[in-house]
């Protein structure tokens, strides 16, 4: 990503008479690499739309796609920071499994004894415990890596085995179900969506935030007399942002409750069943909102906080970071703690969605998470990566899988395709970076 900025700006210095396309990208400061990824996503979507004969780009499939992506997307945001500092975390799937199992046991077995079944506080206590467990595991991994100098690959490879084993020991291999009904909202579904009105409110707030952020950045740059983006570019970005947000809300609001659930709901609330069925929109799913919130918070951490600056400096040149007086070991510990917390949040989403905590929860998720981060432009050499890119990367992976399911492709072949796509994506990225230099 950094390479792109570099390339576009070199162009700025070099040729004043650049073509309109170049001028457009320069003025809007759109990251062409991110745009490339969005382009790949669009190609995948349109491709599947054609292959499945119109099954892919339906509100229902898109809505499901976002819900299925959220768990891996949450973890991918943390994986970016880990890979940026030249580390790797192979244990996220197992940590997800362990946190999920702890949370399952908490809400299904321990807390009801004290609070009674379906107590309104159960979900938040459960989530809090899960996050604490995740943070503790992350801190343990991080400390071993930073203070005992064991390579992250080995520590987390050990973690992969240890926490999967530990998951089994919590209940001696039994699956824990069902989950608390409030907790289950985090998994999405008919109940776990916020409905049409709330979705529009969220969309409008997001639009206001986009416009506000653009205005604020313009004001800041004016304050110090830095070069400004042309006004048309500012308008363009504002409109584009708002159209995308509101478009996504509209899609979510066009996915209606399944007939039998809607009928049950109508019966329970004494609504007369109209001719042609009752159409209750889902709206945005709660796990998707959680993933978006995590993405925003992580982007804030990565770009606006001192900690994030240190993470990138550490990835770019560890010696320079050390010489600059950064406590590099603590930064490493904090990154892994953050990853643990994100694993716990992802675990909440996936156990809530499954309505059960199982031994196998999150198996292979470490690989999907790493793949999402890498497809999203995070460089394994360290120092380069964006949160948004990783989340789009997660969406690309999930789109491929979900599209292949719609096409009825066998699961072994799905894996082959995903594996090949990962390698090809990284190869294309390498080519792109080499040319950008």
């Amino acid at each position: 990503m950094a390479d792109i900025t570099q390339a576009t700006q070199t162009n700025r210095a070099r040729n004043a008479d650049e073509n309109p396309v170049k001028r457009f990208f320069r003025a809007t400061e759109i990251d062409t690499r991110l745009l490339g990824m969005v382009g790949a996503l669009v190609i995948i979507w349109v491709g599947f739309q054609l292959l499945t004969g119109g099954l892919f780009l339906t509100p229902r499939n898109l809505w499901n796609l976002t819900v299925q992506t959220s768990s891996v997307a949450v973890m991918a945001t943390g994986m970016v920071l880990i890979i940026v500092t030249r580390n790797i975390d192979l244990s996220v799937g197992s940590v997800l499994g362990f946190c999920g199992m702890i949370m399952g046991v908490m809400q299904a077995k321990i807390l009801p004894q004290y609070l009674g079944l379906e107590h309104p506080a159960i979900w938040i206590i459960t989530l809090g415990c899960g996050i604490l467990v995740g943070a503790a595991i992350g801190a343990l991994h991080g400390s071993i890596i930073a203070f005992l100098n064991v390579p992250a690959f080995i520590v987390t490879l050990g973690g992969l085995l240890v926490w999967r084993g530990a998951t089994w020991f919590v209940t001696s291999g039994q699956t824990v179900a069902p989950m608390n009904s409030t907790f289950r909202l985090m998994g999405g579904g008919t109940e776990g969506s916020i409905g049409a009105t709330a979705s529009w409110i969220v969309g409008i707030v997001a639009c206001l935030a986009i416009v506000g952020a653009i205005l604020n950045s313009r004001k800041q740059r004016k304050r110090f007399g830095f070069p400004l983006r042309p006004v048309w570019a500012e308008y363009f970005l504002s409109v584009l942002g708002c159209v995308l947000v509101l478009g996504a809300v509209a899609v979510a609001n066009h996915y209606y409750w399944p007939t039998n659930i809607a009928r049950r709901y109508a019966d329970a609330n004494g609504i007369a069943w109209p001719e042609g069925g009752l159409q209750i929109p889902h709206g945005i799913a709660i796990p998707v909102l959680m993933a978006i919130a995590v993405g925003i918070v992580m982007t804030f951490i990565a770009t606006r906080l001192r900690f994030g600056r240190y993470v990138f400096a550490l990835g770019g040149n560890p010696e320079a970071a050390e010489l600059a007086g950064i406590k590099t070991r603590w930064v490493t510990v904090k990154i892994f703690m953050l990853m643990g917390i994100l694993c716990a949040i992802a675990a909440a989403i996936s156990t809530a969605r499954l309505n059960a905590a199982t031994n196998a929860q999150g198996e292979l998720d470490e690989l999907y998470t790493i793949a999402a981060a890498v497809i999203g432009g995070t460089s394994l050499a360290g120092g380069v990566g964006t949160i948004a890119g990783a989340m789009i990367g997660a969406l690309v992976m999930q789109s491929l899988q979900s599209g292949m399911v719609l096409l009825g492709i066998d699961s072994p072949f799905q894996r082959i395709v995903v594996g090949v796509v990962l390698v090809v994506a990284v190869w294309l990225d390498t080519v792109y970076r080499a040319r950008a230099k």
Partner: protein
Amino acid sequence: MTDQRTPLVEMKNVSISFGGIHAVDNASVDLYPGEVVALLGHNGAGKSTLIKILSGAYKRDAGEILINGEPADINNPRDAKKYGIETIYQTLAVADNVDAAANLYLGRELRTPWGTLDDVAMEAKAREVMGRLNPNFQRFKEPVKALSGGQRQSVAIARAILFDARILIMDEPTAALGPQETAQVGELIKQLKKEGIGIFLISHDIHDVFDLADRVSVMKNGQVVGHARTQDVTKDEVLGMIILGKCPPKAIPGPGAMQVA
């Protein structure tokens, strides 16, 4: 020295040994405000070791360091920074993947009242400092990786200046640079001299530094061969000091000078 001012730095009779090898043996060097002293010698002559004692990376076995005439207690790099001593390393100075402003402020970022990074203020200050050092520098938004060697060097130097350095140590400042960039760094050094900053240039190649330095101090086998003002000696004579340890007439011989029979 006929100079009556107090030296900015005076290292007196400094020695350090590693496992019985006298890396630096009874060496003395000094540096005045606004002066550039080149510390020359072969690889392994002890010049880098001597200077690392000053920057706090090594701890001396014997001898003393005076800063502005006062004994200074330098045990680690943080102590050295307290005395306004900044070291610029050829390769380790900058984080490649972040921009110039981020590098200038690495480790002591400016923050808004809400605790977030104040990038705009940092960029403004960076533009100011870089404008003073290198008015042609315009690429504030790009990762440092995209800059030329000379520009990177000026970022590293600007960083030291932002720390209010009064004593600058530059280890092989131009070794990796092309001729044009070397000239750029030369300009920078002249600029810093004007501001009263004392600079130690360390090099094994006399051509890199002879024209920039006011004085040269030559080391050989851990000992100081001698000091000389650059205007009093020729390059060949200094080469003689470096290679043979032979002190020309106008230089002040040190303990390492070849004893002429």
